[in-house]
């Protein structure tokens, strides 16, 4: 089986898995885990979008 993911989808899967582990391992209470995981996910995706726009600006 071969998986074909676009750059953005690959970044989404990466961000989701990494945020899950960060959330669980870096906080003590379940509610805090979820919030920290969501925060990490937002930072990952925000970073990806920001980098994409910076590269677009450099090209143009």
């Amino acid at each position, binding site marked *: 089986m*071969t998986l074909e993911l676009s750059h953005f989808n690959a970044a989404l*899967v990466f961000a989701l*898995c990494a945020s*899950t582990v960060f959330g669980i*391992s870096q906080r003590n*209470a379940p509610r805090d885990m979820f919030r920290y995981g969501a925060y990490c996910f937002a930072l990952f995706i925000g970073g990806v979008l920001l980098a994409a726009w910076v590269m677009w600006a450099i090209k143009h």
Partner: protein
Amino acid sequence: MANPQNTATMQRNAKAAQQTNSMAIIAPLAGWLLPGLGHFIQRRWIRGLLLMLAVFTMFFAGLAMQGKVYSFNTGDLLDILGFIGDIGVGALYFVARMMDWGIGNIHRAVADYGTKYIVVAGLLNIIAAVDAHHIAIGKKP
């Protein structure tokens, strides 16, 4: 003369401490060997399941993207670090090596993402194993 009730309590505490000490070694080892197992043996079912899902997804998605699984090497520094990251995933690494999975494909850009996925799966599993250790020593609920 020692109070028998106190002696019994002390013995119970010593036994509990001994169990905690052995769990502090067993939990991270089990967690390294099979992602999430370190949490399962401490009855953290949901956390264990989520960690297992995250690491398995990263690892198998990496393989499905034709990522490379590094073998032991003493060559290029990045290859050595790749091996160290890969071996963090525990038994899955050895299964992948035995089954000849993760040969890699330099002609596909996505395969390079797959290689990184596999390395990061190992690194995330190490974080999960350390978390299991923290639970075992009582640093975390």
